[in-house]
C-alpha cells in the first residue's frame, strides 16, 4: 500500500474517532487552531523548506484572509463560501504583487522586507477603522455554510478544518515529489546551480510565495468563520514569528513537520498555561514565557533539524543517514 494511502486512512480515522469520542469544546477548539495553523505552516513549509525563502510576514496574509471574509460577509452580505474564496484569492494576489520585488532579496533582507510588510498590514488593520473596525475589530461574522448546511459547532468545524488539512497534505505530498517540487528543492540547495540547470528560479520562488499566501488566506478565512469575531491582535508580527517557529520546530522540508510544529507549539502554550501555576503557585504569565523559551532553545539545540526527524520511519528521503555521515 502506498504511503499516501496509509496516511489518508490514518488521518480519516483520526478525524472520525476524535469527532465521535471528544466531548470537550475546549479540546475541539485547540484541535481547530492546530489545524488552521498547520494549513498556514504547510504553505510556509513549501516556501521555507523547499524554495529556501524566509517570510516573517505570513500573519499579514492570514489577517488579509480573515478580514476579507469578515468584511465581505458582514458589510456586503456575500455568501460565506464566496467570501472564503475571496479570502484565498486576495492574499494570493497581493503576494504576487509584492513577491516579484521582495523575492529578489535574499536571506536576512527578504526576512526584513516580509516583516516590514507584515507590520504595514497590521497597522492598516488597526487604522482602517471604517473597514476593519480598528483595534475593536469586526464582530457578528456568520458561520460558514454550504447551501443549507452550517458549520455552526466546534465538532463540525473540526471535521471541516482537518479534512481540508488532510487534502492539503496529500496535495503537497504529490507536489514535493513532482517535477516542480524537485526544482524547488534544487533552488533551496543552490539557486545558481538550479538556474544553470535551466530552472527559472525567480518564477518558482514567486509561485511558492503565492501558494503559501493562498494557504494563509484560506486559514484566515476559516478562522474568521470559526471565531466569528476578529481583531488585529491575532495578526501581529508575533504571529508571523510563531508560524516560522512552527515550521522550524516541526522540521523544514519534511512531510509531517508543519503539522507537528503547529501541534507542539499550540499544545506547549496551552500546557504551560495549565501546568506552570500548579508548579509555581502565584506565577504570572512571564514564567510561562520563560519556560516556553527554554523548551524551544532545548529543542533547537538537540533537534535542530526539527521534531519530524524523530519519526525517521516516515522520512521518505533516501539514505539521509548516509549523507549525514559523509558530511561529518
Amino acid at each position, binding site marked *: 500500500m502506498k504511503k499516501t494511502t496509509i496516511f489518508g486512512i490514518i488521518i480519516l480515522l483520526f478525524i472520525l474517532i476524535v469527532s465521535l469520542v471528544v466531548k470537550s469544546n475546549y479540546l475541539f477548539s485547540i484541535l481547530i487552531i492546530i489545524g488552521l495553523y498547520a494549513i498556514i505552516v504547510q504553505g510556509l513549509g513549501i516556501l521555507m523548506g523547499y524554495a529556501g525563502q524566509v517570510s516573517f510576514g505570513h500573519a499579514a496574509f492570514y489577517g488579509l484572509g480573515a478580514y476579507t471574509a469578515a468584511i465581505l460577509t458582514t458589510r456586503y452580505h456575500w455568501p460565506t463560501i464566496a467570501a472564503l474564496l475571496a479570502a484565498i484569492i486576495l492574499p494570493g494576489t497581493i503576494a504576487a504583487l509584492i513577491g516579484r520585488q521582495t523575492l529578489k532579496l535574499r536571506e536576512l533582507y527578504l526576512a526584513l522586507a516580509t516583516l516590514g510588510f507584515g507590520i504595514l498590514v497590521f497597522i492598516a488593520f488597526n487604522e482602517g477603522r471604517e473597514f476593519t473596525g480598528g483595534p475593536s475589530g469586526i464582530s457578528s461574522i456568520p458561520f460558514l455554510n454550504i447551501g443549507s448546511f452550517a458549520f455552526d459547532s466546534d465538532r463540525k468545524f473540526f471535521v471541516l478544518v482537518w479534512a481540508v488539512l488532510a487534502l492539503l497534505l496529500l496535495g503537497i505530498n504529490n507536489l514535493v515529489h513532482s*517535477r516542480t517540487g524537485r526544482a524547488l528543492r534544487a533552488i533551496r540547495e543552490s539557486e545558481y546551480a538550479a538556474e544553470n540547470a535551466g*530552472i527559472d528560479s525567480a518564477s518558482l520562488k514567486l509561485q511558492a510565495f503565492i501558494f503559501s499566501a493562498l494557504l494563509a488566506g484560506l486559514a484566515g478565512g476559516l478562522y474568521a468563520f470559526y471565531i466569528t469575531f476578529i481583531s488585529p491582535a491575532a495578526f501581529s508580527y508575533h504571529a508571523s514569528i510563531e508560524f516560522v517557529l512552527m515550521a522550524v520546530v516541526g522540521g523544514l522540508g519534511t512531510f509531517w513537520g508543519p503539522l507537528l510544529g503547529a501541534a507542539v507549539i499550540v499544545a506547549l502554550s496551552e500546557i504551560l498555561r495549565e501546568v506552570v501555576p500548579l508548579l509555581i503557585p502565584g506565577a504570572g504569565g512571564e514564567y510561562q514565557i520563560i519556560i516556553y523559551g527554554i523548551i524551544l532553545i532545548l529543542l533547537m539545540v538537540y533537534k535542530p533539524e526539527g521534531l519530524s526527524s524523530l519519526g525517521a520511519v516516515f522520512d521518505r528521503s*533516501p539514505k539521509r543517514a548516509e*549523507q549525514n555521515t559523509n558530511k561529518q
Partner: protein
Amino acid sequence: MLRIKNLSVYYGYVHAIKDISLEVKEGELLVILGANGAGKSTLLGTAAGLIKPAAGEILFNNKAVTGQTSEQIVSKGISLIPEKREIFTTLTVLDNLLLGAFHRYRKNKEGLKNDIKEILGIFPALKGRERDLAGSLSGGLQQMLAIGRGLMSRPALLLLDEPSVGLAPLIVQEIMAILVNLKKTGVTIVLVEQNTKSALKVADSVLVMERGGITHRGSPLEITANSSIQEAYLGRARS
C-alpha cells in the same frame, strides 16, 4: 556554432572580460587555458547566461543569445558544467539527472527514461547509485553526475569549467576519455582547464586567456611549441 563578438564583462569596476571575440566550430573541442583570474570562468558563465555582459554579442547557431536567461539558453542547447560541480547533494542521483532535463520534462516524459539509461551507459559507475543521495558520492562520481546532468538537457554545446579539479589522475583520464567520446557523438565542447597536459591531449584547438583577453589561439601543437606558454602553463623549467 558559437560566435562571440567584442564581449566585455564587468564585476563592478573590475573589467573581467576585455572586448574579446572568438568562434567555436561545430564538433570542435576547444580548450581554454589561463591562470586564475584570467576570465575563463566568466567567459563560460556569460555564454551560459549566468552573467550579463556589459557589451558585445553572443551568437549560437547564428542566433543572438546575448543577455538571455540561463533557462532560455539551456533550452537552446548550451549546457554549463560549473567549476564546483554544483550538484544537488541532498537530492538523489536520479533527481539530479532529471533536473538536468527540467526544461523538456513535460514535452517528453517517456523519452527521459531512455535518456537516463543513455547517461548511465556513458557513466556506468553511476549505475545502481540512482537512489543514493548525490552528496554521498565520491568526488569523481560527483563530477560524472555533474556532466551527466548537463547532458540530460541534450546540449549541442557543452561548456565545462575545470572538471578535473580535486580528482585523482585516473579519474581525470576517465573523464577526458568520456569527453572525447562525447565529441564523437557530435557534441561541441569548450573545456576550461588548469590541468594543461590532460586537456591538451584531447583538444582540437587551444585558446589562452590572460587578464580578461585572449593572448594566443592555435592547435595543441602550436601552443606547446610556444615557449612562453610552456613556461607559464606547462611547468617547464627556464632554459
